[in-house]
């Protein structure tokens, strides 16, 4: 029995931009927020003329959980787990982008081993993220085999990362000034095996999808956007690159160890769904190429900086020295003291530019944390990709945008 009074009608949480069709034969339909193809929760209110989408009004926010407000009540350290839950397909990139922003504000320089490890793990996460995106989008077009192949590899990656961090999806592995701990025994050997397997499986995906008539008909010249329009609407990442613009923060404003790596920035031609699929496939290959270089380059050494402002003292010393005990206590209770100021640091996340804008008032708690989430910005321009195409194309276009509810709605 429901407790809600039957007489009471719920107010609509959403006000559509238009409530009547612009032409006589137009129909307004509502897609989502709970729809299998909206992975996560997104609502599209569309005006149709026959099967064609004339106008689209995109609503997000169904997964809003007050991330930025919550951060203001935590120390700089204890909000790291929240950061994981932004883009939960590649949580490590979020971790490292956030830590990088705080470290910039504190003036901390991370150790060489951590720098290479973060780069390696960012690329590894990028593979997992692109795989999720491609798997979901091709599955929605009916490619069940390709989906299962991709999920097989992704699951090996998840289990491999669980071996490293203790969690399958939300790792909380980054720390301000370093990482939670070093690599376990034999981790790199297993990494090499997975990369070899990856090549075999992705070869099969290419064989299944690239020249597949059904796939091409559903994706070629669908959801097209030009470079100028993409920049105008703030698109970054694979969507911008699929239009032919080689814009990649890893190349343009190198951070971590990217300036020392050899890699290409794959671009598309048309900016349609097929190009977005192919750019992601090629980017995964580049990531594998980078990881193999990083495995050779990875130096020995400490992973945490020797800086008492952010790194916890060794447990043995906490138990035996009063200074270390106080240090530990202050770091847990008050949090790392970040100098007053503001910083904007952006990393090339799997979906585009992931920026952290942090404002500190000089205490252990942030005054303001703002995330420039690529998915949110992409939702602002999504209607441009939907209007003028068929209703059925909404699914395939939305799949290749790779909207992640966690970072879109925060």
């Amino acid at each position, binding site marked *: 029995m429901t407790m809600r009074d039957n007489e009471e009608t719920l107010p609509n*949480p959403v006000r559509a931009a238009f409530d009547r069709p612009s032409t006589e034969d137009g129909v307004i339909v509502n897609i989502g927020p709970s729809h299998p193809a909206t992975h996560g929760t997104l609502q599209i209110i569309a005006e149709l003329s026959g099967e064609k989408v004339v106008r689209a009004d995109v609503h997000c926010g169904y997964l809003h959980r007050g991330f930025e407000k919550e951060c203001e009540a935590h120390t700089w350290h204890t909000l790291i787990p929240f950061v994981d839950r932004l883009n939960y397909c590649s949580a490590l990139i979020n971790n490292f982008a956030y830590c990088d922003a705080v470290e910039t504000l504190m003036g901390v320089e991370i150790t060489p081993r951590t720098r290479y490890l973060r780069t390696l793990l960012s690329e590894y996460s990028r593979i997992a993220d692109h795989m999720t995106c491609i798997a979901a989008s091709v599955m929605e077009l009916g490619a069940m085999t390709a989906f299962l192949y991709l999920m097989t590899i992704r699951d090996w990656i998840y289990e491999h990362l669980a071996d490293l961090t203790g969690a399958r999806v939300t790792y909380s592995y980054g720390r301000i000034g370093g990482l939670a701990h070093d690599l376990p025994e034999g981790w790199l050997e297993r990494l090499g095996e997975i990369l070899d397997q990856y090549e075999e499986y992705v070869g099969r995906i290419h064989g299944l999808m690239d020249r597949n008539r059904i796939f091409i008909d559903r994706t070629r010249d669908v959801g097209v956007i030009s470079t100028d329009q993409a920049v105008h*609407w*703030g698109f*970054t990442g694979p969507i911008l690159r699929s239009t032919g613009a080689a814009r990649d923060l890893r190349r343009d404003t190198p951070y971590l160890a990217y300036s020392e790596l050899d890699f290409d920035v794959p671009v598309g031609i048309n900016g349609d769904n097929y190009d977005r699929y192919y750019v992601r496939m090629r980017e995964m290959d580049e990531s594998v190429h980078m990881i193999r270089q990083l495995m050779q380059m990875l130096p020995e050494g400490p992973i945490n900086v020797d800086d008492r402002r952010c790194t916890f003292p060794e447990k043995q010393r906490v138990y035996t020295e009063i200074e270390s005990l106080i240090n530990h206590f202050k770091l847990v209770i008050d949090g790392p003291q970040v100098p007053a100021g503001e910083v*904007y640091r952006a990393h090339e996340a799997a979906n585009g530019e992931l920026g952290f804008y942090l404002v500190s008032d000089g205490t252990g708690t942030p005054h303001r944390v703002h995330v420039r989430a690529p998915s949110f910005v992409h939702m602002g321009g999504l209607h441009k990709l939907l209007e003028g195409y068929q209703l059925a194309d909404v699914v395939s276009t939305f799949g290749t945008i790779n909207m992640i509810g966690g970072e879109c709605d925060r």
Partner: protein
Amino acid sequence: MPDDLLERLRSRLADEGREATFAHGLLAVQIPREALLDTVKLLKDGFGFDLFLDVTAVDWPGRDPRFDVVYHLYSTRDHVRVRLKTAVSGTDPVVDTLVPLFGAAAYMERECHDMLGIRFRGNDDLRPILLYEGFEGHPLRKDYPKGREQPLVRYRE
């Protein structure tokens, strides 16, 4: 090359009450709110800052003016970022909209209005985006209590 550009930009912008400084890898410019539209036009047309990254605001309770509205722009040609910051008072938190210049601003201005109650003059589509119709208050203001609840559906008894 980017250093040269930033230096030119700094000297070009350092007038009319605008202040430009380098901070953590980008050029931070403090501008009066009347100069916002002109400054952004100058950056976009004259210096190639074509990618609108972000708009947000920071609440400083007890300070007058109370809010900082913060913009980040990026040049896809020169790979540099610039931050524009303008202060608005708590009683009249209004700035000009940038939607005519950047489509991307539309969604982000809606979010900023949602979360902090900054109004954007000229943007007539400030419907809630992350929140819902009928939500009262602006949650990212410091005087909005974190634990306050406004459920759409009443809790079960």
